């Protein structure tokens, strides 16, 4: 009975880490796509690429929870810089002295 | 009148450039100079007191308002802090500048010869806010003037 329990925990661990690794990698890819768009619009932040690199390093070192966290942070930042670019399009005139 | 570079007009700049180039050719062999020994120990001393001792030995030291020290309250940049030292004291042998908190407090030491007037300016480096001390050596005594100079961390973000 004991060996089955051990076997189950290991399997769950392996399976879940595979899932997390999978989603971390997916989030990194999404972050890279969003970053590319931010670059195209000319509003990339200097911090985003560092987060992506750290996320990749975490995936390689097997720290999957960390990888997932960093990847999400990178994705959020990249999306925010795109929002910033859109906001600038519509609102840059507000700061012009009249 | 451009305040930014009083007394430094383009025309004079080119004239001096041309002339000094000519003089360099004239400088023949290095004249025999009595190189005063560079105070290795003083410049490598890590504390203010050891640096002063290495520079001047055990000469008596006292604050003296006759030593006019012109330094800013807040340094524009720690890399180039302007220091002006002027005194009416007689027989001035040397002037030294120390920054207490620098890794090596002794920054510069100027030894005077015949006919040199104790009125100097220089630029020193300060790692952080610190006491800046000027010491004038005259007639076997050390006359000190000091002031706290604030040094701010540069940059507004990053």
């Amino acid at each position, binding site marked *: 009975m004991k060996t089955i329990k051990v076997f189950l925990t290991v399997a769950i661990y392996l399976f879940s880490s595979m899932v997390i690794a999978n989603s971390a990698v997916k989030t990194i890819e999404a972050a890279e796509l969003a970053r590319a768009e931010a670059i195209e619009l000319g509003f990339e932040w200097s911090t985003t690429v560092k987060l992506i690199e750290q996320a990749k390093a975490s995936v390689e070192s097997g720290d999957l929870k960390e990888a997932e966290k960093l990847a999400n942070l990178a994705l959020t930042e990249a999306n925010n810089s795109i929002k910033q670019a859109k906001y600038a399009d519509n609102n840059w005139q507000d700061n012009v002295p009249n | 009148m451009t305040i930014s570079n009083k*007394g430094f007009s383009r025309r*004079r700049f080119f004239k*001096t450039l041309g*002339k*000094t180039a000519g*003089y*360099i050719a*004239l*400088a023949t062999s*290095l*004249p025999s*100079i*009595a*190189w*005063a020994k*560079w*105070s290795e120990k003083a*410049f490598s001393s890590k504390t203010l007191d050891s640096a002063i001792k290495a520079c001047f030995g055990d000469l008596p030291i006292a604050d003296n308002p006759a030593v006019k020290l012109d330094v800013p309250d807040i340094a524009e940049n720690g*890399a*180039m*802090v302007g220091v002006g030292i002027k005194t009416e004291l007689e027989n001035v042998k040397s002037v030294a*500048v120390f*920054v207490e908190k*620098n*890794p*090596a*407090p*002794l*920054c*510069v*030491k*100027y*030894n*005077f*010869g*015949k*006919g*040199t*007037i104790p*009125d*100097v*300016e*220089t*630029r*020193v*480096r300060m790692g952080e806010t610190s006491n800046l001390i000027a010491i004038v050596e005259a007639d076997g005594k050390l006359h000190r003037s000091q002031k706290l100079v604030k040094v701010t961390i540069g940059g507004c973000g990053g």
Partner: protein
Amino acid sequence: MADKIKIRVKTKEDNGVVKALMLIKHPMESGMRKDQDGNLIPVHHLKEVSVVYKDETIFHGEFGTGASKDPFVIFHFEGVAGEKFEVNAVDSKGVTGTKSVKIKKLKKK
């Protein structure tokens, strides 16, 4: 040591007192600075400057790493426009530099 220490001097003589402004090109490496790939740049600083006027060393400067990059000094001495003095410099690597300077009259604006 092919390169020489570059020295620039400006002088203004006003009724017998010469104001000399001296700027000496030197990196003044304190030994604590790092280059782009992160390794420390070794100590290298100006050590001494001597000013010889009428065969006398009238001014001798000793410099440590606490002096600013491209060290700058203003000093005053009794002298006459038209006469010459010589500046000699040496740094911690033994590189030298010399400059002969003709004293100029202060231009009254």
